[in-house]
């Protein structure tokens, strides 16, 4: 087993009231090229900054080769960072920038005195040693002879190389790279990706790389850590993450994908888009599942041979392949193929069993904690909804004074009763009229699932936010401000165990 050079144990980070990193644990093997991948604001940079020492975790431990370094300041950690916007010192030239770390360094040299006893001394590196190391670092990044150049005369790509040289010259145990290629143009970025990868192979030190670019992550990494909302979604090799995404978020974020909702109908048989397919994942029969099919795994055949039949509705040339969208009943399927088809053509579609990936759905219903108010409405998720409280007590009804009368004729005032509120995925709708629903919030995620969108609306402030997950056929935009509408009869209430006891 490889040595764990860095290990995070239950690391949590708050900025003020905001939870940025939520109980994250993982380890990094020595010599590995590991990438933190996720959309902006997912906490990947904060995680990196905690490893560098710029931020301290609110709780949890960061272990370096088994030693807890959580509280060490950055200058005491054997890690170096390549910053997002390089952070080169503008008043130094290239040589002075790269030599900065070496000049701060003290090495322990062993000497022998007259009597032959050994003694050690902490010493600075000599000028000659520094010059040699700088020269070597510049060779590694292909900038020989740039020592005397001032930073402002360098291009973005050259500054990038200086930033890398400045970090690796210190021979750190771990090199941290915070979206280092973000400011470069596409061609430059591709070249640097390959060079970084080569550099990693040559230097043999551990690289921790942060990016939001999934292609970059797939190209360069040995291991990818997919993050979202301060939580690790999946850790694995690029192949594993691409072929076997752990959930719809990962599937949607990495590469193109068709995501469907379906049901397991038999042993290794799954039904979606109205047809039954063979698959390789073994789930319990009748279980609801999310299904991911990569566009390149959909094969186009003649209408008679295809399990699915549909009509081509769009064809887009993408350079290496065509992206073809096919309407299958009410579902849309995206296909990538080197062959083209005509718009309007009727075709059949097949998916091989190993092209169908099943996942346990993250959301099947929405569950909230709620409280019954004076007027027999229920308060939850930062809003107030009308509901049918009689369902809490079978056979009960509401009298004229708005009291609940149970089957036995007992009068109960429900005000303040804590309840569990359950709302199904298909029972929620949203409106851009703010007063139309019981609560309001912003759309934080939209994932297309073939025939509908899976939308998540987040209500309330950051410290007490609640998410609604539901399916809709309408397309909304992320960040839209909407109100959430739930029909009275679709709100399922149940008494919490404690509340039940009190009532009895």
């Amino acid at each position, binding site marked *: 087993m490889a040595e764990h050079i860095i290990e995070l144990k239950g690391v949590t980070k708050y900025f003020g009231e905001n939870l940025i990193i939520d109980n994250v644990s993982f380890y990094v093997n020595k010599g590995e090229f590991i990438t933190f991948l996720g959309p902006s604001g997912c906490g990947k940079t904060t995680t990196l900054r905690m490893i560098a020492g710029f931020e301290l975790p609110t709780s949890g431990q960061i272990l370096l080769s088994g030693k807890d370094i959580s509280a060490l300041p*950055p200058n005491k950690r054997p890690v170096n*960072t390549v910053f997002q916007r390089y*952070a080169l*010192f*503008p*008043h130094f030239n290239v040589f002075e920038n790269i030599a*900065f770390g070496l000049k701060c*360094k003290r090495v322990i040299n062993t000497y022998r005195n007259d009597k032959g006893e050994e003694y050690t001394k902490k010493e600075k590196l000599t000028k000659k040693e520094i010059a040699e190391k700088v020269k070597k670092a510049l060779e590694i990044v292909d900038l020989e002879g740039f020592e005397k150049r001032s930073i402002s005369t360098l291009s973005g790509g050259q500054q990038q190389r200086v930033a890398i040289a400045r*970090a690796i010259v210190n021979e750190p145990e771990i090199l941290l790279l915070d979206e280092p290629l973000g400011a470069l143009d596409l061609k430059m970025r591709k070249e640097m990706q390959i060079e970084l990868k080569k550099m990693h192979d040559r230097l043999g030190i551990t690289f921790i790389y942060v990016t939001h670019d999934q292609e970059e992550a797939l190209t360069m990494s040995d291991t990818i850590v997919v993050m979202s909302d301060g939580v690790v979604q999946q850790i694995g090799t690029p192949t594993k993450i691409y072929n076997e995404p752990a959930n719809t978020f990962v599937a949607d974020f990495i590469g193109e994908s068709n995501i469907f909702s379906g049901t397991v109908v038999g042993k290794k048989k799954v039904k979606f888009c109205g047809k039954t397919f063979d698959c390789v994942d073994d789930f319990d029969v009748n279980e609801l599942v999310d299904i991911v099919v990569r566009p390149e795994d959909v094969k186009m055949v003649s209408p008679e041979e295809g399990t699915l039949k549909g009509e081509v509705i769009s064809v887009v040339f993408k350079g290496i392949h065509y992206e073809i969208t096919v309407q299958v009943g009410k579902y849309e399927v995206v296909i990538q193929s080197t062959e083209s088809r005509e718009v309007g053509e009727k075709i059949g579609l097949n998916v091989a069993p190993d092209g169908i990936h099943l996942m346990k759905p993250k959301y099947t219903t929405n569950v909230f904690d709620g409280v019954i108010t004076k007027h027999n409405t229920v308060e939850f998720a930062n809003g107030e909804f009308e509901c049918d409280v009689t369902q809490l007590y079978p056979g009960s009804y509401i009298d004229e004074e708005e009291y609940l009368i149970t089957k036995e004729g007992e009068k109960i005032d429900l005000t303040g009763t804590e309840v569990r509120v359950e709302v199904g995925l298909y029972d929620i709708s949203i409106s851009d009229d703010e007063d139309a629903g019981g609560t309001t919030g912003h759309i934080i995620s939209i994932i297309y699932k073939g025939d509908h969108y899976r939308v998540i609306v987040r209500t309330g402030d950051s410290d007490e936010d609640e998410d609604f997950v539901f399916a809709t056929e309408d397309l909304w935009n992320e960040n839209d401000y909407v109100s959430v509408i739930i029909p009275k009869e679709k709100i399922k209430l149940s008494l919490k165990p404690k509340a039940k006891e009190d009532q009895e």
Partner: protein
Amino acid sequence: MKLPRFSRKTLCIPYAVFLVFFVIIPMCVIIFYAFTDRDMHFSFSNFLQFFSDPTKLSTIVYSIVISLITTVICLVIAYPVALILARSKLKKKFVILMLFVLPMWINFVLRVNALRELFNLLSQAEALAWLESANIFKTIVGMVYDFLPFMILPLYTTMLKIDDSLYEASADLGGNAFTTFFRITLPLSMPGIMSGVTMVFLPSMTNYVVSDMLGNAKVTIIGKFISDYFGNDWHMGSMIALVLLIIVFASTLLSGGLNSDENVRGTNL
């Protein structure tokens, strides 16, 4: 009919008029007076007299020393304040900055007057009776009080422009607080120091209102000297003014030259 073309250059006219009447002509008059004697004949006598008169030379040295002390005190007070303010993440730091700058908005003579009354009041107390005759001390306190904002502002704006990631990079590369300050913070705030020093040093050489009011007219700085001469000897007065101008010009050139050499970002206010 062709309308007269209104070009952007036309907008310069008001300033050009101002420049001619209030800068160029007075300047010529000063040079003229400096190099003529009482009979309006060309002469170097003022020049020679100035540099052979020990009182005049010592007044210049004396002014420079007082200005230097003022500048150093201002810098020592302003630097940490500006640094803390620029680096703090306080949302209200603008308010704190305003508190330092606010006195600038109150009439200068009023403030100096108030300070004098305060000193008078304090010197009533037996323990502080020495204040009565501590003219130089009072002058310097007055100048520091007056010119401190001019030191804080350029320092603050320069430090604000230093990217936080540079401090992080220094720490990341193994630099401790000491290294980071002397190798990153100080050199990068140099433009601010330079403009702050210029903005405090030069006025405190010539601003004799403070020395007059707080120093019981016992502290004679160069500005006071010039104004005294203009009472009866315009020729000598002009010569001293010209010498002062050259000193000011030389020192500006010196600090300006340093700025462009150092390839640093920052502003010169």
